[in-house]
């Protein structure tokens, strides 16, 4: 692995996005618009909105990065660029980490905009402060990128890639504790939630919301999400083959 090739890949992915303003607007602006809508869905119930808005700040980056990474990587496979790159003198890690860096930067920008809207415009209070919110959002985005890189190997069309979102992300969304406390769910679903990474991403945001200091539970939650992302990233690397059978 060489840093120069990794950063060249990250730059290339960002250059591609810069030529696609519609996607950029969707990624950067849509989460904030949805949060504003949600605020008025809970009009008159500010406390409820205050408790769920930070959790959603941890969910959006994961979902967005999952979708765009899985489609971007699938395109690399279908237009032949990945095929060509695999004959080049580069490490598969250059390719994978290049994507991870590019989308982490995008997620950071998305999180900055969404946090500014939620914490500033909508007046939600987060005891832990803005920095832990941004860190948690970027970690969630990296997980989404890893999952997208991995899942793209199992899709043969962009249509299929998009279907992985409801199939793979929605069950986690329903059981992560956003809609109801996890200990109120059926036992089997609690087991499921305990092994799914989105649970810990949402937990991290809860910690940031409720505690003025950086707690050990926050560290544990973030480490679990990072480790999950790293394992999936390695699995994603295994799905990219130099030689096909």
């Amino acid at each position, binding site marked *: 692995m060489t840093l120069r090739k990794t950063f060249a890949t990250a730059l*290339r992915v960002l250059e591609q996005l810069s030529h696609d303003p519609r996607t950029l607007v969707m990624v950067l602006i849509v989460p904030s618009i949805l949060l504003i809508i949600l605020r008025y869905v809970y009009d008159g119930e500010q406390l409820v909105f205050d408790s769920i808005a930070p959790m959603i700040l941890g969910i959006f980056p994961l979902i967005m990065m999952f979708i765009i990474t899985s489609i971007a990587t699938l395109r690399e496979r279908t237009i*032949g660029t990945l095929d060509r790159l695999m*004959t080049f003198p580069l490490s598969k890690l250059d390719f994978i980490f290049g994507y991870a860096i590019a989308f982490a930067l995008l997620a950071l920008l998305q999180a900055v905009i969404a946090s500014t809207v939620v914490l500033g415009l909508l007046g939600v209070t987060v005891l832990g402060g803005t920095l832990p919110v941004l860190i948690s959002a970027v970690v969630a985005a990296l997980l989404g990128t890893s999952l997208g890189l991995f899942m793209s190997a199992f899709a043969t069309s962009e249509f299929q890639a998009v279907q992985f979102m409801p199939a793979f992300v929605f069950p986690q969304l329903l059981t992560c504790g956003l809609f109801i406390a996890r200990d109120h769910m059926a036992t089997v679903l609690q087991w499921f939630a305990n092994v799914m990474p989105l649970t810990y991403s949402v937990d991290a945001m809860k910690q940031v919301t409720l505690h003025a200091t950086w707690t050990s539970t926050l560290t544990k939650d973030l480490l679990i999400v990072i480790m999950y992302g790293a394992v999936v990233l390695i699995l994603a690397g295994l799905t990219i083959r130099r030689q*096909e059978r």
Partner: protein
Amino acid sequence: MGMTHAVKVEEATVLFEDFKALDGVNLELPVGKIIGFIGPSGAGKTTLIRAVVGRQRLSRGAITVLGVPAGTAELRSRLSYMTQENSVYPDLTVRQNLRYFSTMFGVPRAKVADEVSRLLAVMTMQSQADQLVRSLSGGQKQRVSLAVALISEPELMVLDEPTVGLDPVLREQIWAIFRKLAANGTSIIITSHVMDEAERCDDLVLIRDGKVLAHGSPSGLCEQTGTKTVEQSFLQLVGAQA
């Protein structure tokens, strides 16, 4: 260099479940020549070149490329591969594509800009340099893809249908580039299902149903079969096989 062959293929067989895409292929391809893999669609040409560049694992047999086994890491900076698809990024400009691929090929940072300028000049694409690839015509996209294969002028270029969709004038220009590269010692393998392309090659490998029907120079093949064109030779060989 002392290398006798650019590529040596021994009993290469590729099985896709029950289908034999390559069936015991044996070949010795010379250095510094333009070699055409000619045959109908589905003959096994692409599978063979993918095995040569190390992208396709053999079910049986062995391939040696530039003196080392196909797929060896060191070959990645000694050969280039142009796939049948354009294999360039449509949402980047021509210059951005060439800069990215040059960096990934290992062109030193200080020389990337010069290499990109050289490639743009070779392909006469200076005026399209800052255009997005998706806005180019099919032939122009093909030229960008070919430019990527020319990065650093590797020892072996493996090109899958490189001149499909190009107009006759451009095709002449591309063949002039191939000739110049071969004269400087570059070995070039191209695939084609168009027989008039075959006449331009130094060496031809006629392929059908995963097997090599014949291997020789265009004139040698015509002589061997008593025909006037490579197409007639091919048809005669297919008839003899049936």
